[in-house]
């Protein structure tokens, strides 16, 4: 495991800022799509991978990622750092993450406001945390460590949640804003998560977005969700990533782009994965919104001049 990721002393590595990739749409990279992607040749857009899938020492996963990276910008999306957990970060895991950032030079690097490991068990899910001064201090400390290790700002993703904590004393937007201000991290705004959490927690998604520090958003996620019911028989939305983006989420996305301007946008699709053209078409729909906004913005600039 350690043969590939040679430890680099943080001080010896210059602080890097992401190469801006502008208002382009990308997709999750799934190895089953590789032949179709290669057949299409280099294209506008970027690919996002889950960092943990490429933390093996060698073999086909790295060959595949090298192939993808050669022709396209990459977004490295960590899923298991457990930044939101009370336990100290796993140093070995942090070193592997740093190794991937150094090796593949991704344009975007992100992780979640969630936890997944407790004591010795890894739960493989993005688990929720209460929003208090104590958890805020702990999360900020973890983000400081990650940013120190990778020598660049991290984008932190807002979660989708199904429960609330009795002890929470801050709104999620307030909590996230405080993290960004204290650590200097950027934000990954998952618009589907906003829609899912707002519905599940009984608040307005538009109010949430109005209160969200949009100026710090460096990437947007869009994904599909599923419907279940809560104990009272009311709608409970599940962040399932297994289908197309819902119309209501597209509408929220347009609101965000109008306010924030064009930022890299990812179509996230992780289970019941469709053929490449279907995924590509979802990305094209996001790209159309980004392009429309960018041309309107340019026309507005000309008008103003």
């Amino acid at each position, binding site marked *: 495991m350690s043969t590939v990721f040679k430890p680099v002393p943080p001080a010896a590595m210059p602080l890097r800022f992401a190469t801006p990739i502008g208002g382009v749409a990308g997709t999750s990279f799934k190895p089953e799509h590789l032949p179709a992607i290669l057949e299409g040749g280099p294209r506008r857009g970027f690919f996002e991978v889950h960092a943990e899938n490429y933390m093996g020492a060698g073999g086909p996963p790295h060959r595949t990622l090298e192939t993808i990276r050669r022709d396209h910008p990459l977004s490295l999306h960590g899923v298991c750092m457990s930044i939101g957990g009370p336990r100290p970060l796993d140093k070995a895991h942090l070193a592997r993450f740093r190794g991937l950032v150094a090796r593949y030079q991704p344009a975007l690097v992100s992780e979640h406001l969630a936890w997944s490991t407790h004591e010795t068990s890894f739960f493989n899910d993005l688990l929720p945390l209460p929003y208090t001064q104590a958890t805020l201090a702990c999360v900020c400390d973890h983000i400081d460590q990650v940013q120190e290790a990778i020598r660049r700002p991290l984008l932190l993703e807002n979660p989708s949640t199904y*429960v609330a904590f*009795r002890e929470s004393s801050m709104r999620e937007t307030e909590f996230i804003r405080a993290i960004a201000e204290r650590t200097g991290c950027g934000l990954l705004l998952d618009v589907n998560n906003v829609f899912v959490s707002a519905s599940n927690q009984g608040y307005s998604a538009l109010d949430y977005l109005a209160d969200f520090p949009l100026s710090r958003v460096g990437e947007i996620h869009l994904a599909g969700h599923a419907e279940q019911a809560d*104990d009272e028989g009311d709608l409970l939305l*599940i962040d399932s990533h297994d289908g197309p983006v819902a119309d209501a989420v597209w509408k929220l996305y347009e609101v965000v782009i109008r306010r924030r301007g064009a930022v890299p946008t990812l179509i996230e699709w992780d289970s019941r994965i469709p053929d490449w053209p279907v995924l590509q078409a979802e990305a094209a729909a996001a790209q159309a919104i980004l392009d429309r906004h960018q041309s309107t913005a340019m026309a507005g600039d000309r008008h103003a001049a």
Partner: protein
Amino acid sequence: MLPESGLSFAASFAPALLDPARSTPDIVTGPSGKAANRRYDVYRNNVTVSLIDALAAIYPAVQRITGTDFFRAMARFHVRSNPPTSPLLFEYGRDFPEFIAQYEHAREMPWLADVARIERAWLDAYHAADAVPLSPARLSAVTPDRLADLVFIPHPAARCLRSQYAAVTIFAANRDGAPVMRIDASTPEDALITRGEFDVTVRRLPPGGAVFADSLISGRPLGEAAALALEAASEFDIAANIAGLIEAGAFTSLSCGDPS
């Protein structure tokens, strides 16, 4: 170590995730006083199902043999008693073959655990470090008087497994979707797992081949490995076996080992 003040939420939230007998942690709630049982169950379900899916992805042949329902029931027991300890899911399930060997409903398939061991070794070979396999020309260049002292450096992906059953044939027949013919499970088979240029391959070793491969992989000199293999199987063919191992990419280099 006690969590710092205000950080006990994970210790309260985690225990019921994999234990259906425990009730919803009382630190969580729904909005406006709503209940949180079905809400918390979303997390229980995500954890359990995703870990069962992880085992299914690591052990596809085992799942094909047992059928999906049998596999998922067996995997659910394992997930609940042995959750992963690493955030890298491709490291998960190392103790699953032993769990299968002890699983009472799998007793009629005594070879199933060995098929699982091959699948686990397959995944380890898949993620193993990259290395250029030894060229056959390197062996040809060694003078006969030095052959017995040759020591081979194993490729990081190379593994050898022995089975009292036809585990290699059963593995190979169930790894893809092709129809499976009747297999005599009682023939002992040994497996060599390697990764040459790109793909992982699983080969069946001839009699004596596993002793030979194991000995070389663990660093014994060629002469010693050959003697052990001949002891295990009188028909053992040294030249064919060494050529086969090199061709499979089991080694990266060799040295005319100074005795130390």
